[in-house]
């Protein structure tokens, strides 16, 4: 695949020059992490898919505004997060999707283990719903997007210290919920 070894910032430079192949490379590299973040944050696959498209279209349309001084990943997640927050403000949190957990493939073939794993995932879904949007976004960005505290602070417009505290609180809420009856 062309551009496989290029940095995100080099791909953005190529995209600014009109390269559709650079766009494809950026999509291939980031769509899974971004979709996981959006789907877990919104709790709705359909809305997450819509916002995934919208985010990448904005990357293309705003490619001339991107400055390599900021990491591309931070810029990408800032766009996605703003869209998601805007969606939440307008429509509120969607109803939880029961098939959301069912759709997750399970590598373990044993029926008992499969049931256990499915229950764990269902409990994780429910636990995440206990968090405030702020705690949820920080947790998801840290755990699934693999972003540093400094990057999350940049995306959410706060400080790394505030991110640390929010993440700690989010994990305590989850722990309390998951260890409950």
């Amino acid at each position, binding site marked *: 695949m062309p551009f496989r070894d290029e940095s995100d910032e080099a791909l953005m430079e190529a995209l600014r020059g009109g390269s559709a192949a650079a766009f494809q490379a950026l*999509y291939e590299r980031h769509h899974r992490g971004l979709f996981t973040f959006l789907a877990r944050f919104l709790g709705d696959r359909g809305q997450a898919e819509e916002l995934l498209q919208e985010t990448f279209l904005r990357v293309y349309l705003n490619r001339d505004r991107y400055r390599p001084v900021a990491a591309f990943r931070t810029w990408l997640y800032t766009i996605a997060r703003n869209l998601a927050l805007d969606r939440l403000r307008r429509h509120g949190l969607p109803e939880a999707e029961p098939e959301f957990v069912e759709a997750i493939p399970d590598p373990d073939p044993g029926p008992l283990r499969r049931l256990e794993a499915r229950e764990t995932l269902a409990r*994780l879904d429910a636990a995440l719903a206990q968090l405030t949007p702020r705690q949820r976004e920080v947790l998801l960005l840290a755990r699934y997007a693999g972003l540093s505290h400094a990057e999350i602070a940049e995306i959410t417009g706060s400080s790394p210290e505030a991110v640390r505290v929010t993440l700690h609180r989010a994990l305590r809420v989850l722990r309390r919920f998951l260890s409950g009856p």
Partner: protein
Amino acid sequence: MKGSGVECHEVRDRLTEWLGAETGPEAVRGHLVTCRACAEELAALQETWGLLGQWPGLEPDPAIGRRLQRKVRWWSLRDAVLAPEGWRAAALAAAIGVGLSIGMSLLIPYNTLVALCRQVVADLVPEAGAFLLAGAAYGVMPLALRVLIGWRRGSPGSWLGATEATLLFLIFLAPYVIVQCREFAPSAAASFVGGLALGALGGSLVASRLLPGHGPEPG
């Protein structure tokens, strides 16, 4: 509690720096050796963090990627066609190509080249073939000019530039060709102009593919 010179509340605010990492800040590490409560808090955080790792990543509908790609390809082409700098380079290349083509026709008039071509292809193709070949010989003049200009400026997508330059080349050269072909029969003139267009477009496209890094983008 105070251990290694730091308070528990200071340490707890920094425990998340440990998550997903082999080790954490030096001051916190020292405190954890002596403070059981903070060590247990870290272990609990790590356990929850690990549990979250069981949640697999999600994959969107593959059609989304394909749809996005189609849309961006189209927008990218549209933007490239509308970009004025591309047309400026194409106009410059076309003007140089027209100058060379007219200069060549003054040295070797169209009639002379047609006669030469007729000798070469007389036994192989019908009469119109000679006009076609002669036209192509003139048309190929701006070969690579647009591409070379694009190459010097580092602009991608030269196949588009080659097409733009060829189009302008043919428009600029048309009046001169019409005057020069007035003595040809209509079918011969049509063959000559067709050869000219084919030579110009084919030459530019071939050159745009041959120059490294400036062929059409891979899909």
